[in-house]
């Protein structure tokens, strides 16, 4: 569909752009490097009521300003987004929106990331002409975890339309009409949809806020890192917001091939929970029957010395990165241990009906395909450990294990982040950074290799598993250990079917599909 016949050329703010027929003026303006301010329009929400009137632009030959979010670009059209008429109209919309707004930016969680604040600042309106009493609506709850601040609401209906168009659950609506209109649920029927949290993300102002985020952090006090949600095998692209080394919020990050603008609430919770629990902060080795802390050098040489070729079993986590799994496999190969299993928690599958490729998938782990790629096998049970055998555990694979699991092993190497009860039976504990504390890749349900970046500092001297495992292999006579994720990925890509040709930098922020060699005979979906 890219032949010239389907293309039209128009001029926007003096810049000539060529776009496909059917493109709206707002989208065409983006090609010209012009962002037309807007509220009700959201690129991920199909319905476009053109009701906020913020994106009105002047088109030569048209008597009235037109909403660029729906007005189709026409050949030869000359459009002005910043003409005096358009600017005045926009400024006026801001004034209207601020009439009854409480101007509570100092305590509003959206401050700093608020489209109303931004445009008000841009249009420079310091004083309101409004001399009347403001309407007061107060605060309401629309879900057990989402609050609605009615006074801040500009009734753009993005949230209502997300629920209707995307979630397919018309449970959030505009009540009343005119200047009395507000957003509401039916009494006693708060939102319970698995994707409801997106209404907070689409809110252009601070009207909808997650309760666990209220008053927690200012936008400018947070760091933000691109991550991959570990909640299920979809691998939603996310943005992790961190304040004082704590994850305070997770938001979806646009990836049209995976999750579009959305993510589910299970994923939001999972990442925040990643911070919790008792952590392994230093390497520990069992000496005289007790686990004693040791330095990395000490621990790695000790483990290398004590570990010997033997029969044994391995358990890994499908939440571990490909790089960690790769080096674990290399270690197992070095030790002559075959196989290895992982478990995956199963949950109800929920589809976002308006973007059906996005599902909260039944496999509640991010790297099932990665674990399979490195020859680990799904199992419902933890493997039995014969007395005296070697046991290698990677990642948080023992959270559901009995407290005495592994106690009978001859050598129990625990490579993990959390000191779950069974971990205390280990012969040696190598403290691993959690996923948000490190960089790496996952392979999602459809074989897409996606990068995640570091959002947090690790506690103590915990380090990425791939990093210290490569050093452990060095101690065992292997090549030099790697220090950079790119190097770790390169080693893995060379040795792993389906990953040939992939590079860390080449994956970028949208990921790449495994080649056919890495895909199972029958596609996952």
């Amino acid at each position, binding site marked *: 569909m890219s032949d010239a016949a389907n293309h039209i050329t128009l001029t926007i703010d003096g810049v000539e752009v060529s776009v496909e027929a059917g493109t709206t003026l707002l989208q065409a303006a983006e090609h010209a490097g012009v962002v037309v301010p807007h509220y009700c329009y959201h690129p991920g929400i199909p319905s476009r009521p053109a009701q906020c009137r913020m994106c009105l632009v002047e088109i030569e030959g048209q008597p009235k300003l037109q909403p660029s979010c729906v007005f189709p670009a026409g050949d030869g059209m000359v459009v002005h987004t910043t003409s005096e008429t358009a600017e005045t109209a926009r400024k006026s919309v801001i004034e*209207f929106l601020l009439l009854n707004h409480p101007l509570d930016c100092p305590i509003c969680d959206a401050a700093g990331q608020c489209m109303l604040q931004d445009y008000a600042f841009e249009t420079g309106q310091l004083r309101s002409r409004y001399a009347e009493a403001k309407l007061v609506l107060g605060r309401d709850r629309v879900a057990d975890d989402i609050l609605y601040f009615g006074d801040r609401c500009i009734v753009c209906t993005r949230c209502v339309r997300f629920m209707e168009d995307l979630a397919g659950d018309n449970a959030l609506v505009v009540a009343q009409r005119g*200047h009395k209109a507000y957003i509401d649920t039916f009494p006693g029927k708060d939102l319970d949809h698995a994707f409801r949290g997106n209404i907070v993300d689409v809110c252009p102002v601070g009207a909808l806020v997650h309760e666990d985020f209220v008053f927690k952090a200012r936008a400018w006090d947070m760091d933000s890192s691109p991550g991959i949600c570990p909640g299920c095998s979809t691998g939603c692209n996310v943005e992790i917001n961190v304040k004082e080394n704590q994850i305070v919020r997770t938001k979806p990050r646009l990836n049209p091939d995976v999750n579009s603008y959305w993510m589910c609430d299970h994923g939001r919770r999972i990442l925040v929970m990643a911070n919790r629990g008792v952590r392994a902060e230093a390497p520990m080795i069992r000496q005289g029957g007790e686990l004693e802390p040791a330095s990395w050098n000490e621990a790695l040489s000790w483990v290398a010395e004590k570990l010997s070729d033997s029969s044994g079993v391995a358990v890994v986590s499908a939440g571990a990165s490909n790089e960690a799994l790769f080096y674990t496999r290399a270690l197992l190969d070095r030790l002559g241990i075959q196989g290895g299993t992982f478990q995956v928690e199963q949950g109800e599958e929920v589809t976002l009906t308006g973007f059906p490729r996005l599902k909260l998938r039944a496999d509640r782990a991010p790297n099932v395909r990665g674990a399979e790629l490195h020859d680990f096998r799904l199992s419902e049970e933890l493997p039995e450990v014969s007395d005296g055998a070697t046991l290698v555990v990677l990642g948080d694979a023992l959270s559901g294990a009995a407290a005495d699991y592994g106690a009978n092993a001859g050598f129990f190497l625990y490579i993990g982040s959390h000191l779950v009860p069974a971990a205390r039976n280990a012969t040696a504990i190598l403290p691993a950074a959690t996923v948000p504390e490190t960089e790496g890749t996952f392979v999602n349900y459809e074989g897409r290799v996606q990068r995640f970046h570091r959002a947090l500092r690790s506690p103590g001297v915990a380090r990425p598993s791939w990093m210290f495992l490569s050093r452990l292999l060095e101690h065992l006579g292997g090549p030099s250990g790697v220090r950079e994720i790119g190097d770790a990925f390169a080693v893995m890509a060379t040795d792993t079917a389906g990953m040939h040709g992939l590079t860390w930098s080449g994956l970028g922020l949208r990921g790449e599909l495994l080649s056919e060699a890495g895909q199972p005979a029958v596609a996952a979906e």
Partner: protein
Amino acid sequence: MGYPYSHDLEVGTLLSRHFGNEKARTLEGWKELGGYATLPKALEMDPDAITEVVKNSGLRGRGGAGFPTGVKWSFMPKEPSGAHYLCCNADESEPGAFKDREILRWVPHLLIEGCLIAARAIRAEHVYIYVRGEFFPFSAILRDAVVEAYEDGYVGQNILGSGWNCDVTVHLGAGAYIAGEETGLMSSLMGGRAEPWIKPPFPAQSGAFGRPTTVNNVETLAAVPMILAEGADWYRQWGTEKSPGTKLWCCSGHLERPGTYELPLGVNLRDVIYEVCGGAPDGKKIKAVIPGGSSTAMLTAEELDCSGCYEGMAEAGSALGTASPIVMNEDTNIVQAMRRIAQFYAHESCGQCVQCREGTSWTAKILHRIEEGDGTVEDIDTLYHLCEQMTGRTICPLADSVVFPLLSSLDKFRDEYDALIKR
């Protein structure tokens, strides 16, 4: 008050001929009065030929916008690929207008016949007559007439043995002025909030239930049978070149004889007010007239010599609208009257577009403050600013509806505002 109202102007009473005659309400009585004589003719005609006659008659939409009816019908697809609908707009809710209710309650079968002929022309299979909820007594008369028409084979399956099927349903609104806007009406008919939608899609492409739809006003449709019966030229003997025919004028406010009068388009507005309606009672002078329903620009008593037709009222700086002059005598507080009008639109704004949702209520509040003596000079500037920003900025013209009377009141009666501010 008796019907039709007697007045001295020489006019033909076409639509209102049988107003006041209870006989016209029943099917039997209506047939005796010559009703349903045109429908058989329409059933034998090619649909496009019906449209052509209406086009040639120059009939224009009586709901306020004045769009040529035949042209509107011609937008409908000629070869249906599914259902077409006709919506009859009986949501009469413009303050000042009370004409359609007279048709509903006195000549319901005239409306039904008009609906059927129009449905035939646009190839509609179902006519929805959307009547404002408040009109219980009038919708009941219409409803009973529809049932009678069903029973006698004028509506429903195989109408008059022609093989043509067309249903008619009377549908009640529930209190929303904006349901009178055509897309708002369809939103409401479909079981939604009466929120107008942005065009395109136009109703003739995708209207009610996503199907090609035409929305016509009651008075427009009621004029159709006679036009088809007597011909376009016959209809053109009344009115002007650009505004042919007669019009129901609804006159209210400070008048000796308020009421609904059928007068030819192009009638002198001053004559309507003074000759037909007898001017203001008690010998008072008239201060201002809002000529076309509350959404049109005010005229002063000196500006009333204008031609009461679409183009004439536009020339006079106002609009014919629904031809519903609201007359205000010399004692009227213009600011207060304007506040009352603004309050109506603030109450009726659907709330989608920001300028309308916030602007109408802000306007009403400022006017109220000025009325109470707490106004400032800056308020006048703000009102002018509001007039500018509420014009042509929104999906539907509700916001513009406040601007027309407001701007004209500011321009023409500024002294009244100033007097309240300076007090």
